[in-house]
């Protein structure tokens, strides 16, 4: 491509920030990932691939009882075995940790109590893995069983024994009660009110790579941990805390993750244990979890029981919504407080809800802890809302696509619960999938056994607030320009397969007019890279993208100044493209990028710039307003077409059409990959995946294996047609929003709605399995209601709500004081 062409395209201006809509040369192109060749040739080193000289192997002994007091642990027989080097119990690491400051409730190894089957209680390191394995069986443990809390009902009803000695009360971890406007008045105004109870069973991330970590202790007393983590920064903090080390002496390197999906976002026991072992033995220590242990680490989708009551006008306009959720949290806090808020946060961002009341409760139970899985806390309520909307549309004799289109939350608005909406492309998403799927000719028109369903969703492009309270940026990028023309980007972000390393390279390459594959990307190393909070909440493209953009623009400014001086040109006449820096008005006048950097270095000294990103402040000023705000919301709509075998009830999804409002694709190929991956994961949740336990047998996880935890393979995957809607958001780099989580959300409700269209039964429980469909069909054949699902929501003491008037009722984002409430 000639320089001339780039000038005619507008090129890159060295004035100000990149403006949405300007032509680009890297951004928006379907390039390969920067790490693609390493991945497909097997060169990528995952945590378990790492080997260090004199390395030891660690194994954890996990509780075989779901709830027990630890009476005694005798490591003696294990330590006496040949090849065993060291052993640990909880007493050696008594300081608690946890991802959220409000739930520091984990011990590296359980101190006095085991809280679920799989809770680590002791550890061994040995010369080889077989010996370590044999040794953990030699450990003598005395556990005294305690009664177990098996689920939501138990958690609400049974106060003693408490699984934890903190939380709201008994086994209630957290209660949230937020009221935005008078919902009862909304119901009174309504022409129709629907009240549904829906259950969403828990499920897990199932990344291909099992968690692994390797710790090394240097002669000068510095600790290095390589780990398969999505959040090296938070692991860094936890290690320093529990090991009582200055953070400056701890280095955490996140290896490329073989899939994360939220399952590697907490600091984990095994990470702390190998670090401690390395410090004790002076030798590198590695641990690789088994698949079963990954099920015990979990932090996946909470099982959530929901009650959703919605009032609507004849035309489907919502007059008020009351949403209740009860979350089965498992044995630890993890991200649970945030998850609880998230089950009530994003209902308002898709369709106008003038009055909204949310009540949520999270229970501690004796199961693997739940936490953030792709969509974190929002897929369950989204499912309930979208299924209910399908029923409302039917009640009102409206087309379910139309009812949605009619009442969209407007762009550039603030919702009842004070979420600031920027760009909003849901309408276009709906129109695309409706047209693509031939919806109008299919819905309620296909032969018995075949059906279509529609559903929508929205997700954050990064959480507005960090996990621990602070005023620092959420993402930082350093850029180094070498006089040879080499550019290195340093950033704390972690590539978990989503392509964040590539995004850094694309953004910098775009701004500096160079080839992204020439850029060296150094990420996720707490010694070398500035902090990025981690790969969660779909924050990385937006936040690191903005930080990289700022760093790159600052570097461009320096280089442009130097080149302008040499060419005796104006700075804003300088263009960067095709590895050259030249005059826009005369492209032949200019230098190679390397030469340009040399002039800059001569003028300014060593060229390094930084960029950082902090999200804008959100308008909510009440306790709980921190969960839900985001710089930008992505939107998705999906149509599912499926068959239900009338004899067996087996659902077979044929095709999914999905529209995703991405703002702007930094790389459309990667966005499509994320969208299709989300569809695939959503399909698994919709029709088969479930984390289930045997209540009758000690609360064991029923099926902790890849074979029996049913998840779709490529064979079970359907065709997907993806439409990317590009309406650049002012807050995103080049207008980009998220793609990694949002597109998963509409799949489950669209499947449930399609099953209804196919065979006329409502399955108000995820997963929608053949068994449940058949049951409901049989009930219907026998004249009963053709429905499978829960019928009632338990009684909960919610306490008094925090009342915040919505903006249109004169609210300013602050809760009403007590006096105002009395009036």
């Amino acid at each position, binding site marked *: 491509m000639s320089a001339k062409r780039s000038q005619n395209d507008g090129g890159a201006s060295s004035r100000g920030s990149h403006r949405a809509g300007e032509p680009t040369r890297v951004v928006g192109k379907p390039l390969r990932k920067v790490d693609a060749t390493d991945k497909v040739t097997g060169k990528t080193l995952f945590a378990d691939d790492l080997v260090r000289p004199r390395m030891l192997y660690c194994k954890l002994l996990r509780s075989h009882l779901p709830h027990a007091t630890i009476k005694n642990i005798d490591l003696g027989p294990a330590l006496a075995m040949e090849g065993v080097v060291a052993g640990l119990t909880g007493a050696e690491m008594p300081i608690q940790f946890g991802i959220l400051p409000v739930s520091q409730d984990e011990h590296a190894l359980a101190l006095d109590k085991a809280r679920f089957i799989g809770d680590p209680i002791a550890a061994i390191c040995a010369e080889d893995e077989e010996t370590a394995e044999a040794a953990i069986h030699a450990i003598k443990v005395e556990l005294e069983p305690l009664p177990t809390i098996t689920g939501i009902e138990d958690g609400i009803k049974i106060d003693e024994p408490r699984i934890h000695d903190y939380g709201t009360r008994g086994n209630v971890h957290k209660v949230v009660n937020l009221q935005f406007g008078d919902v009862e008045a909304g119901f009174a105004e309504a022409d129709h009110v629907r009240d549904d109870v829906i259950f969403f069973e828990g499920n897990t991330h199932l990344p291909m790579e099992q968690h692994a970590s390797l710790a090394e202790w240097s002669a000068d007393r510095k600790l290095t941990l390589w780990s398969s983590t999505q959040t090296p920064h938070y692991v860094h903090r936890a290690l320093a805390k529990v090991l009582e080390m200055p953070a400056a002496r701890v280095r955490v390197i996140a290896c490329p993750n073989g899939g994360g999906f939220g399952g590697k976002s907490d600091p984990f026991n095994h990470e702390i244990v190998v670090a401690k072992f390395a410090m004790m033995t002076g030798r590198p220590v590695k641990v690789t979890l088994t698949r079963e242990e990954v099920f015990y680490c979990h932090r996946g989708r909470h099982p959530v029981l929901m009650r959703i009551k919605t009032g609507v006008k004849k035309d489907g306009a919502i007059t008020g919504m009351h949403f209740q959720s009860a979350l089965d949290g498992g044995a630890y806090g993890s991200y649970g407080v945030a998850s609880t808020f998230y089950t009530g946060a994003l209902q308002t961002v898709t369709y106008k809800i003038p009055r909204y009341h949310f009540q949520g409760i999270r229970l501690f139970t004796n199961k693997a802890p739940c936490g953030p899985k792709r969509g974190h806390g929002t897929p369950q309520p989204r499912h309930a809302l979208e299924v209910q909307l399908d029923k409302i549309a039917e009640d009102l004799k409206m087309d379910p696509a139309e009812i949605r289109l009619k009442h969209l939350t407007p762009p550039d608005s603030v919702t009842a619960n004070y979420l600031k909406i920027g760009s909003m492309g849901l309408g276009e998403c709906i129109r695309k999938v409706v047209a693509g799927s031939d919806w109008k000719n299919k819905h309620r028109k296909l032969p018995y056994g075949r059906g279509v369903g529609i559903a929508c969703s929205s997700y954050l492009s990064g959480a507005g607030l960090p996990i621990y309270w602070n005023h620092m940026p959420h993402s930082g990028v350093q850029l180094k320009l070498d006089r040879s023309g080499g550019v290195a980007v340093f950033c704390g972000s972690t590539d978990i397969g989503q392509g964040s390393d590539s995004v850094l390279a694309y953004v910098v390459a775009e701004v500096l007019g160079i080839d992204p594959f020439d850029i060296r990307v150094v990420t996720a190393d707490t010694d070398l890279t500035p902090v990025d909070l981690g790969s969660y909440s779909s924050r990385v493209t937006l936040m690191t993208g903005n930080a990289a953009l700022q760093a790159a623009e600052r570097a461009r400014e320096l280089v442009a100044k130097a080149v302008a001086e040499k060419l005796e040109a104006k700075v804003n006449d300088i263009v960067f493209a095709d590895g050259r820096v030249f005059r826009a008005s005369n492209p032949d006048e200019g230098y190679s990028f390397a030469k340009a950097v040399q002039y800059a270095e001569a003028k300014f000294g060593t060229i390094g710039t930084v960029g950082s990103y902090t999200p804008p402040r959100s308008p909510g000023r009440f306790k709980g307003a921190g969960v839900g705000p985001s710089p930008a919301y992505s939107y998705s709509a999906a149509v599912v077409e499926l068959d239900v075998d009338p004899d067996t009830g087996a659902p077979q999804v044929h095709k999914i059409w999905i529209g995703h409002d991405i703002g702007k694709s930094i790389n459309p190929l990667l966005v499509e990959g994320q969208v299709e991956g989300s569809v695939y994961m959503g399909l698994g949740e919709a029709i088969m995946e479930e984390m289930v336990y045997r209540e009758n047998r000690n609360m064991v996880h029923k099926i902790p294996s890849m074979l029996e935890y049913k998840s779709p393979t490529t064979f*079970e995957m359907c065709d997907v047609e993806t439409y990317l809607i590009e309406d650049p958001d002012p807050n995103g780099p080049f207008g980009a929003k998220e793609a990694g989580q949002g597109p998963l959300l509409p799949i489950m409700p669209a499947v449930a709605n399609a099953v209804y269209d196919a065979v006329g039964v409502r399955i108000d429980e995820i997963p929608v399995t053949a068994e449940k469909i058949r049951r409901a069909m049989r009930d219907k054949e026998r004249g009963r209601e053709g429905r499978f699902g829960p019928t009632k929501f338990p009684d909960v003491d919610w306490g008094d709500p925090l009342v915040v008037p919505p903006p249109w009722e004169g609210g300013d984002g602050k809760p009403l004081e007590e006096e105002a409430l009395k009036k």
Partner: protein
Amino acid sequence: MLRLPNFHYHVPATVAEAVALKAEHGPHASYVAGGTDLYPNMKRRQQEPHHVIQISQLRELHEVRDEGGHVRVGAGLTLTAVHQHERIARDYHALAEAAESVATPLLRNMGTLGGNLCLDTRCNYYDQSYEWRKGINFCMKKDGDICWVAKSSPKCLAVSSTDTAPVAVALGAAIEVTSAKGETRRIPAGDFFRNDGIDYMKKEHDELVTSIHLPAPNGWRSSYMKLRRRGSFDFPVLGVAVFVKFANAKGAAAKDAPVEEARVVLGAVFSEPTIVHGAADALVGRPLTKESIEDAAEAAFKIAKPMDNTDYLLSYRKEMVMPFTKRALLKVM
């Protein structure tokens, strides 16, 4: 990761050597062919043989031979070789279907016909790691003394989960075994299994399965249907194999000819593949019609007793016996 325990590994050169090794080490030894069942079980410590005797290299086990009309298929053939074999695919369609429905292509490239017939019975209280089983305080099949599926049951109710065995029984095949004494005998497939989750085969422990003898194809038809959540690689949680022979089974007339001989065999709902005698009664002597099929399916439904130890609710597995039996019979209509 899960690692194998230590064991002695033997590679005998002949069948005689193999059976001698097995006799020598008794209950502490296991044959291994493809290892796709044995090795995962060893990793989970469900089986802990100190001696493992490799048999897949034995030439004799790899032959497919026509013996005067009927066909003798070596036990060492991989499942891929079985379902791709021209003769088998043509004359023993149900067997090819069953073999092709086992696991995944990779596992079928390793797993053998013999290993599939001798496959350990399955139960989701048992197909778990040692640590997991410690959590339920073990069960009678390994390391414990109670059956968690039915606490009062005197015997283990683990499920026969082999896809080819119900077909072998339906076809009236015979399984040939060789013992350490050098004796070779043929056991009718219908007599080979026992409805006991622990002691699920009637052959002696040292007896090596060398081949399976398939009856001459003379007009009968067969089919196999399998219930599982994922068509890509799940074990059966219900299998239905059918064999139907029509009187005067020639050409188009076969359609209306009365059924002369029939077998409907259920897999994966007991500890052995189980013949539904009532189904044969319903079919024999009448042409194969919707009505006779309905009656046969009803008979199968009546006897099926799935337990709560596999994927899917047991009530659903039972309910599915009807449509699956019907579909298997419709396929041979």
